[in-house]
């Protein structure tokens, strides 16, 4: 069992599932409800199997070892190698992905048109996302990073809401512009360092002048992906128009690629430039935290509000990363993980009422607690987690990021703390307007509470939020070695103690 190429198996299993669906489609032409349900079952089984395999791979993974593990290395072409491997940062994000995908498949019950195409694209998307977190060759990383745009573009455009075509284009072109500049930078690095291997590039020290430009090119890509203010404007459109499962994937996983990229590339490969741009990154983070919180407060669409809150929460991630301290980096990783569960769950909460009422207007709802007590409780849990209530998973990440930022710059940390106050303002006001009050709207009179499928969706997420909140050391211990390595290498490169 030791020698199996775990990462490749996990990464490409969903793609194999997609091929299976295509094969059944060729064999059984024509859509009918029975066939569609069969496809759903295949997708669910494949994603669950992927998660199970990921857990098995976890047993072969030693979190105390900061090196890349489960490494596979095969020469490919043009000097590029098929090189896979994970440290605990990659492992954590892979686990997040494989954990959320079965939930997304379950949440896609309301998809009724072209189910086979939908599931095929979703499985391909999972393969591409997993590849991002375990690729150790920079070209392979780029392939996975960029390739995810194709399925996501079609998912938003076909199964999305009213303005889906606009949103799909905006998402694609925005992200492509960011990442193609990164591609030029990657190729430039390949020509100067003479290698495409990520571990080797981490060892290589680039000239200061070059670092600045390379850092900016990578920043263009990751800042759009994360997203950071002011290049976040694609996100509210894409999130709002995407189908529920698409929003979950976007918020919970795709955004994390930005944070992952900063930690994997910007900090270790361009330490001088990272230090140079730290005030710049802090400013953008603080603006994101405060400004997008205020914007979120004024939204009339539930999904848009949650989308803006994601931007604000990602502000803590960049704040933590660029603090260059172990607490900050640990907080950023934790925040990414926890935000994956919470924002995913919140979008699923929106999906529950949207499936029933087909509107996301906040003013349409009100008093849901009377008809949907269980739903109200679930929504409450995730809202509180989102605003950072101690005891739930939103809290440790924020506090650690702020702690790290405080060591780097007290003023920025103080400003960012204001954002912590703003989160309850928009979060709780949303909850009040949707769940509390009297049930005035006659259309809501017959709205039904959570069904069994939705229970299954929310229970794992609620457990994850609670467990991470009550026992954050579980995750923090897991990522400690990696965070230590990143930070000590960064500090050593800067000549700081």
């Amino acid at each position, binding site marked *: 069992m030791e020698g199996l190429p775990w990462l490749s198996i996990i990464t490409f299993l969903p793609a194999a599932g997609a091929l299976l669906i295509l094969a059944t489609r060729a064999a059984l032409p024509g859509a009918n409800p029975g066939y569609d349900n069969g496809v759903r079952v295949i997708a669910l089984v494949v994603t669950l199997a992927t998660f199970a395999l990921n857990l098995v791979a976890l047993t072969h993974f030693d979190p105390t070892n900061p090196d890349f593990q489960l490494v596979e290395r095969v020469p490919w072409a043009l000097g590029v190698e098929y090189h896979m491997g994970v440290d605990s940062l990659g492992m954590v994000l892979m686990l997040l992905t494989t954990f959320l995908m079965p939930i997304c498949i379950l949440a896609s019950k309301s998809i009724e048109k072209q189910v086979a*195409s939908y599931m095929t694209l979703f499985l391909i998307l999972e393969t591409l996302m997993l590849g991002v977190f375990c690729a150790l060759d920079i*070209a392979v990383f780029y392939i996975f990073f960029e390739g995810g745009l194709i399925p996501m*573009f079609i998912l938003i455009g076909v199964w999305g809401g009213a303005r889906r*075509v606009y949103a799909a284009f905006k998402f694609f072109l925005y992200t*492509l*512009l960011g990442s193609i500049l990164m*591609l030029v930078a990657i190729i430039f690095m390949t*020509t100067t360092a003479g290698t495409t291997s990520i571990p080797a590039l981490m060892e290589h020290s680039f000239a200061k002048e070059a670092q600045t430009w390379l850092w900016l090119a990578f920043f263009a890509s990751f800042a759009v992906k994360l997203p950071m203010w002011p290049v976040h404007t694609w996100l509210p459109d894409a999130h709002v128009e995407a189908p529920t499962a698409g929003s979950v994937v976007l918020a919970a996983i795709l955004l994390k690629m930005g944070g992952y990229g900063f930690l994997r590339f910007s900090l270790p490969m361009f330490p001088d430039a990272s230090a140079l741009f730290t005030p710049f990154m802090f400013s953008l983070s603080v603006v994101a935290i405060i400004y997008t919180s205020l914007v979120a407060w004024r939204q009339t669409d539930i999904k848009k509000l949650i989308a803006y809150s994601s931007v604000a929460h990602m502000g803590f991630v960049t704040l933590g990363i660029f603090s260059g301290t172990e607490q900050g980096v640990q907080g950023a990783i934790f925040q990414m993980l926890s935000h994956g569960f919470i924002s995913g769950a919140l979008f699923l909460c929106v999906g529950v009422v949207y499936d029933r009422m087909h509107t996301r207007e906040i003013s349409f709802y009100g008093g849901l607690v009377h008809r949907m007590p269980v739903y109200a409780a679930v929504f409450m849990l995730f809202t509180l987690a989102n605003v950072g209530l101690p005891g739930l998973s939103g809290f440790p990440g924020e506090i650690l990021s702020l702690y790290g930022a405080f060591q780097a710059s007290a003023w920025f940390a103080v400003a960012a703390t204001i954002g912590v106050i703003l989160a309850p303002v928009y979060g709780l006001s949303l909850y009040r307007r949707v769940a509390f009050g009297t049930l005035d709207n006659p259309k809501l009179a017959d709205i039904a509470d959570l069904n069994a499928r939705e229970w299954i969706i929310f229970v794992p997420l609620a457990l994850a939020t609670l467990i991470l909140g009550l026992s954050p050391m579980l995750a923090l211990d897991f990522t400690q070695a990696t965070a230590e390595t990143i930070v000590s290498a960064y500090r050593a490169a800067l000549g700081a103690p």
Partner: protein
Amino acid sequence: MSVTDLIYSLSWSQPELWVAAFALAGVVIGVYVKDAGAGLLSLAGAAVFVVAGALAFLFQPSEPQAVFGGAMVVDGFAGVAKAMIAFAAAATLLLGADFFGKRREQRFEFPLMTALAVLGMFVMVSASDLITLYVGLELQSLAAYVLAAWRRDEARSSEAGLKYFVLGAIASGLVLFGCSYIYGFTGGAIAFADIAAHVEAGAGGVGLLFGLVLLLCGLAFKVSAAPFHMWTPDVYEGAPTPVTALFAAAPKLAALALIARLLYGPFAGMADQWGQVVAALSAISMAWGAIAALLQTNIKRLMAYSSVANMGFALMPLASGTVAGVEAALVYMAIYLPTTIGVFALILAMRKDGEATESIEDLAGLAQRRTLMAALFTVLFFSLGGIPPLAGFWGKWVVFLAALEGGLVWLAVVGAVAAVVAAAYYLRIIATVWFKPPEAALQTPTAVALTTALVGAAMPFPILVLGLGWLERWAQAAVIASF
């Protein structure tokens, strides 16, 4: 030239001989079988092209061989280029036979004119002096003018032929004019080797440069690099679609190979000067090809601008002046050719009410009616756009790599931005296919068109992605043995 020299030369020219023999025999046979035999003749033609391509690919000399008294050269680079030209032409000939056969418009001259064009391209990529260069160029061009006007009863097709001819004649004039300068300022050198000697010695000066630039302008017309691309949209639109498929693939590679041979052969010593010209051609083509395509509603016109942009990318590595640049251009074209032929096969598969349609709007909702065609459109256009994991991405990768190794960072950045703009119109097609509600149902595509599209789409993914190492090796071998 002695008899032994002649036999030696002919033995190295088997691909050319096969194609020429087919063209000449075809004329005689055609007189007897008349148009009814056009289908069979096309099949035979495709088979001959495949044989010629295989011969060119398999029997590459380890050292460049000068044949016909130095008028032509046979080397690995020419072999690989000829193979690609022949395979592309074979595919388009099959598409043409299918297209004209279905419409009962077949004429036996079609495979013969294609064969003459292919012969011209073979001569172009093997050219080793200025006369051969011109003869090859004209043989290919004259056959192409006729092919463009193939449906002579149709106004658009005649217009395409006429436009192509008039503008092509000007380009040929530029080439000749440039040749005359080179001839004059090198003191009567025609062979590339003699010109190289003059260039190395630094003789010739501005006159020689002037000649080279004129020559490059004429060749830029043939690869439809902006600002010499004006004929492309009209000819692409007006010519019958299989002919457009031919134009979009093989002659582009032939002209590009000729440019590479010229720049890296006789003019290698002037890389500083022509590097700027090629870089400018590349930048303008990428930018204009991307911007102008945004507003097209006809898919063939859109493909015309797409080919302008793609030629810009193919020229980018040549601007670097490194031998690795030639290799990159070869790899780029090897990925581009099957993709573009696949796209044109798909365009041929677009039929509505018994008529071919070229309007992008008619693709609306294809994903719901014909999922396979929609999937092929998706793969082919994302590959053209250079989005990973499709092979088009690797085309961009090698091209950017060569440009950056040559220190042309600005050109790579221009290319990167142009690629994003280009993605917008490729996306528009994919959006029409997937996002729009279905309106006009397209008819069942013909088996030949669908199969060609399927093969075309299988090349960018997964064949060339998995076979990338192989592609790299033979491009490398071909270039190292030749330059």
